[in-house]
């Protein structure tokens, strides 16, 4: 059995003034993921290592970390690709570290709510279900795949430079609802879109879409709304709307 060197960034606020690296030697088989490597460390080498995980199959969005400086899901990343190491595992960048590999997500959660990520039906279908063609579904389907794993926030340098930036996932989810044919809440969400820290905080680096494990393509969601925001800016004088 081969052994890979894994280095984890450790931080226990009750004992540490600052984070520091800790080295582990982890025996592994070719089918083992980074998440399983961390679980081996916790089970056999160092029970104090703290990290989030749940489904082990890239759907819960819990196990996001920086693997050699790249945001990745631990459960989808294989140790064999980093042999012999050292494989450096850090908490997702741009977020405060709570403990070891666990980050403080509260900023994201607050922003998520502000995007009103729920269906505001255009018409009440009454007792009938809404009807939607496959074409209409295709308009927003990819944006509905977001698992809130926050890899895109770790990837986004604009979020790193300015914490007030709404960020890729929230704007993608906002777009998911705006693009849904059943939804009538676009005007309500425009305030967030139009703000300096809304879509205009994005400079299309595009790395968010590169790292997204679900193919959401947040860069596209954000930048399509730059045109929407521009239209809204210039046309607002032509077609006055109520309920701003």
């Amino acid at each position, binding site marked *: 059995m081969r052994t890979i060197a894994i280095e984890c960034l450790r931080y226990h606020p009750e004992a540490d003034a600052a984070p520091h690296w800790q080295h582990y030697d982890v025996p592994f088989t070719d089918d083992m993921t980074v998440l399983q490597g961390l679980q081996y460390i916790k089970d056999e080498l160092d029970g104090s290592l703290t990290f989030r995980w749940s489904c082990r199959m890239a759907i819960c969005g819990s196990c996001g970390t920086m693997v050699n400086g790249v945001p990745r899901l631990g459960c989808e990343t294989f140790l064999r690709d980093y042999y012999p190491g050292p494989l450096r595992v850090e908490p997702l960048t741009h977020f405060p570290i709570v403990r070891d590999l666990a980050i403080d997500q509260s900023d994201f959660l607050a922003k998520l709510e502000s995007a009103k990520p729920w269906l505001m039906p255009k018409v009440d279908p009454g007792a009938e279900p809404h009807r939607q063609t496959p074409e209409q579904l295709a308009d927003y389907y990819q944006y509905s795949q977001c698992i809130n794993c926050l890899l895109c926030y770790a990837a986004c*340098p604009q979020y790193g*430079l300015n914490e007030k930036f709404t960020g890729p996932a929230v704007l993608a989810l906002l777009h998911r609802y705006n693009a849904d044919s059943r939804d009538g809440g676009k005007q309500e969400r425009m*305030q*967030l879109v*139009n*703000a*300096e*820290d*809304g879509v*205009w905080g994005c*400079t299309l680096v595009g790395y968010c879409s590169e790292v997204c494990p679900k193919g959401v393509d947040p860069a596209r969601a954000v930048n399509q709304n*730059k045109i929407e*925001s*521009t239209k809204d*800016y*210039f046309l607002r004088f032509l077609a006055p709307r109520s309920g701003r």
Partner: protein
Amino acid sequence: MKRSNKPIFWSLFGAGGMLSALIGPVLIFITGIAVPMGLMSRETMSYERMLALVHNPIGKLAIVAVIGLFLFHGLHRMYHCVHDFGVHVGPGLKAIFHGFAFLGTLAAVYLVLA
């Protein structure tokens, strides 16, 4: 949340980006490489020909469009570059960068109309 006035600058940035993407490389090639090196005849940029261009109304429009839009694109991006280097950018810097582009465009207009 305050509405951003980015759309104004972004539209100019977009127009400049499109124009500079389509004809930027070839313009630099002609004026900065081909003619100075003799790959294209010196006649291409002779005083008489360029004067004719500046006197032509379409030529005037083209000159103002190229200089103005290239400047707006370049300076808007530069403003963002400064921010990307971690420098705090505020309305002051925004005014300086875009103001410079505006002045450059005005200068071009003044020159072609004179």
